[in-house]
């Protein structure tokens, strides 16, 4: 295929603004699937993606389209739909020449959309504004177009009006893609370069790389080199991506996308953003923009049943086959036994991993509260990175602690601005910008310590704004913080897994709240249980959970002892989901109690 007749584009949209429906509609318009194959929202392939309405893995599809007698290939390159995966989003966008900016005409621009548009502009993409849900009674195309111009500075004169649901305007949209998105062009004639923008594991084919060719051609049988890892592999097969049935091909050339089968057992050698070139005639430079995966959030993951540590390791190893961003190392907790310190890209990534471990591998888990990575400078001039609060050195040894800050962008209706500012102030946020996009919509930009938002910020924001505010963030830098370690004792014993790092001036109130929350969460036990919060050796808050008064069924039906036994067995099963710490049984949520306080 002549690269002049290829168009590569992706869709930028906020959750619920109709991205998946629009993608399905475009696929249908190009007759790429039969009606029978068209299941709703086929671009989301994982169960968790469908349940949560988000895209975790980037999907792609190669489509054929005829316009004015000319045959075109259009590659729809989907992007992950969550802030945790912003690096992956940037690489997917880098594989394109254009992007559709889809905004719900009945709602307006959202924070996440803005962040992704900036990323697309950084990659020099042609952006086509698309107003979706134009047939809704609440649609207000002019207002939303104005909002896009105000918030992003994008000319909306030629914005397209569509309804992905009814199919209105879809043909015109595809025509616009062909007319407005530039054709791919090779900038380094004579070299072979393709960028890996996604990789995943297939049970039959092994690890697969989804690539976009920038220069030259990749052929079946080629010996290729992955430039940043320095590893060489043979190309076993190449396929054009398709949501139902990928099509085999012998080669992919400039501007084309393809799934490259290398027969690898793990995706770890196929890092997103890395460059594929010929082993015997490598390109001079890899494609710019590659970054090593760097987890922002860490948490301890422990099996509730201590003898399932090896099962947990196997499960993590298997998840890793398909998720190169997942990082983990064994760690030991005095309270929880053997487990792993796992690094995640963000909170959603953590939830998804935890859910998959429990659901797909059937391991009951304790997850400790997520924490960021602190940079600690010691008085002896050395410094270290602390990913686990219990490993924070003694205060006497610490010179300075630095913590990561993010730039948070929030878009909200005017009425909630007060609440949000209060929330951000309570979380040590520093205002950088406050812009009125129009009379009703406000954009807030804050620098906030990441530790203040990795926990439950998004949930709190949603409930404080009835779901109307949207939120996005990016890492900016490390800044000095006045921080201390707060420890929790249960029944007189330190529970290392419950230690947290808090701002010094909030230590007392956090300690008090945490103790109160634990009292709510921890059920009564056979014995009285003391709960204490301490700073160093100093107890700053304490409470007692009095002993249980009663747990017995007063009636045991004569000879029907089996019935009673079965009831007790059920209770026993319930207790299995608790973690014994000393003689105290703590429910899973106790380890996340820190997330439940303000």
């Amino acid at each position: 295929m002549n690269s002049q007749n290829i168009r590569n584009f992706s869709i930028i949209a906020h959750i619920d603004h109709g991205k998946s429906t629009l993608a399905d509609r475009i696929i249908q318009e190009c007759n790429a699937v039969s009606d029978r194959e068209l299941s709703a929202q086929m671009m989301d392939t994982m169960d968790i993606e469908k349940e949560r309405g988000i895209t975790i893995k980037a999907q792609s599809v190669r489509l054929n389209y005829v316009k004015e007698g000319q045959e075109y290939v259009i590659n729809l390159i989907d992007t992950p739909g969550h802030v945790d995966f912003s690096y992956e989003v940037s690489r997917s966008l880098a594989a394109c020449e254009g992007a559709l900016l889809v905004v719900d005409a009945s709602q307006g621009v959202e924070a996440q959309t803005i962040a992704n548009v900036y990323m697309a502009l950084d990659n020099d993409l042609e952006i086509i504004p698309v107003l979706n849900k134009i047939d809704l009674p609440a649609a207000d195309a002019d207002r939303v177009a104005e909002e896009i111009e105000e918030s992003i500075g994008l000319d909306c004169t030629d914005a397209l009006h569509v309804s992905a649901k009814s199919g209105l305007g879809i043909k015109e949209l595809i025509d616009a893609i062909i007319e407005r998105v530039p054709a791919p062009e090779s900038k380094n004639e004579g070299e072979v370069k393709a960028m890996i923008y996604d990789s995943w594991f297939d049970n039959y084919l092994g690890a697969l790389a989804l690539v976009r060719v920038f220069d030259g051609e990749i052929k079946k049988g080629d010996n290729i080199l992955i430039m940043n890892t320095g590893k060489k592999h043979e190309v076993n097969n190449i396929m054009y991506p398709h949501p139902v049935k990928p099509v085999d091909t012998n080669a992919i050339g400039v501007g084309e996308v393809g799934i490259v089968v290398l027969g690898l057992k793990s995706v770890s050698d196929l890092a997103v953003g890395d460059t594929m070139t010929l082993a015997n005639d490598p390109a001079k430079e890899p494609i710019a923009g590659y970054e090593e995966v760097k987890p922002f959030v860490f948490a301890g993951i422990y099996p509730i049943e201590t003898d399932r540590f090896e099962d947990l390791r196997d499960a993590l190893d298997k998840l890793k086959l398909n998720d190169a961003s997942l990082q983990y190392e064994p760690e030991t907790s005095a309270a929880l036994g053997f487990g792993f310190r796992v690094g995640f890209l963000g909170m959603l990534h953590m939830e998804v991993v935890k859910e998959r471990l429990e659901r797909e591998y059937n391991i009951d888990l304790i997850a400790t509260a997520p924490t960021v990575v602190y940079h600690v400078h010691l008085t002896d001039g050395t410094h270290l990175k602390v990913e686990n609060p219990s490993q924070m050195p003694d205060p006497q040894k610490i010179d300075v602690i630095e913590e990561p800050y993010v730039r948070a962008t929030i878009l909200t209706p005017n009425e909630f601005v007060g609440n949000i500012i209060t929330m951000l102030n309570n979380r040590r946020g520093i205002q950088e910008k406050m812009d009125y996009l129009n009379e009703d919509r406000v954009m807030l930009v804050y620098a906030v310590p990441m530790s203040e938002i990795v926990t439950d910020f998004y949930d709190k924001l949603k409930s404080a704004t009835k779901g109307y505010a949207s939120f996005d963030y990016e890492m900016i830098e490390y800044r000095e913080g006045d921080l201390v370690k707060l420890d929790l004792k249960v029944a007189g014993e330190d529970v290392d897994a419950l230690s947290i790092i808090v701002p010094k001036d909030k230590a007392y109130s956090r300690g008090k709240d945490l103790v109160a929350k634990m009292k709510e969460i921890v059920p009564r036990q056979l014995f009285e249980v003391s709960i204490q919060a301490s700073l160093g050796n100093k107890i700053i808050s304490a409470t007692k959970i009095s002993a249980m008064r009663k747990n017995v069924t007063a009636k045991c039906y004569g000879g029907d002892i089996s019935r009673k036994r079965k009831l007790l067995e059920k209770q026993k099963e319930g207790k299995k989901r608790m973690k014994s710490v000393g003689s105290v049984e703590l429910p899973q949520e106790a380890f996340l109690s820190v997330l439940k306080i303000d």
Partner: protein
Amino acid sequence: MLLYLHVPYCDSKCHYCAFNSYTGMFHTKDAYFEALYKQLRHLLGQTDEPIETVFIGGGTPSAVQAHYYEKIFSLLPRSGIEITAEANPGSATGEWIKQMADMGVNRLSLGVQSFDEDKLRFLNRAHDQNMALEAIEAAKQYLERVSLDLIYNTPVDSKKLLQKDLDTFLSLGLEHISCYELTPEAGTRFADLTLPEGSFGPLIKEKLERSGFGAYEVSNYGKPSLHNLGYWQYKNYLGVGAGAIGFNGGIRYYPHSDLNAYIADPLFTKKERLSAADMEMEKIFLGLRSSVGVTSENPAVIKRLKHLADEGKLIEKRNRFYNRDFFLADEIALYLLK
């Protein structure tokens, strides 16, 4: 070997009742008692162990005229063992009690439940306070051993009401009382009943023990029923009647619980074979809910038993561990079995 006989007939159904009982089926009485006789004779023929106690429960045994029991008693020892019959104040007349006592019944368990009129109506009991007192007087005339059943933790209960019920009981000079906490059972009128928070159990226990009625099980006070105690001691028992469960040599036997199915085939039983772990668990929770106590061969369990004794939850006497608070029986069992 204990013997339990089930009489599934009732004059009316109480709102809380999940037992295998029938109203409006009295026409099957003849056939049912014929089946009871057949099953009992069969089971007695199969065991060498002597019968230690008999318990005739229901349903409402007093809803069936005494002469129906004659053939049954012809198969049982005449004297020397505890023979209890359940009865309800509405149907336990002096005449019925006398006839039963003549045949060998030496202990009566009266389903009084309360002396409070409102509470009796709430429970849909077929008697009132006066009928209860009359039945008790009649029982005392013919039997030395009389027990009452009382229900607590119903939404109409209060500390005052229960104290009054207990005072009435204590004034009657009886030897035993069973106090059952109301359990909303699926399939009953009370299935979705919201119960009061907390429990009056400890209050009841304290008052009864102060008056000399020691608890020997979570619901039972006074001079122990050897039959009940036998269950908690993990003795074998024969179950005779529709849905009457038997237990012998690690196997639990379940006859038809449907009245007509039972009459058609009284010898049929479904068998449940218990594993060693099942039996260990049962011995533990039964021992903990009663004065029977617990012992174990399992080192992990023994270690926990000793720990609980050190913490004052259990009392150790000659390698047996006794629960100090029956209301914690299940929690302690779960702790031992984890």
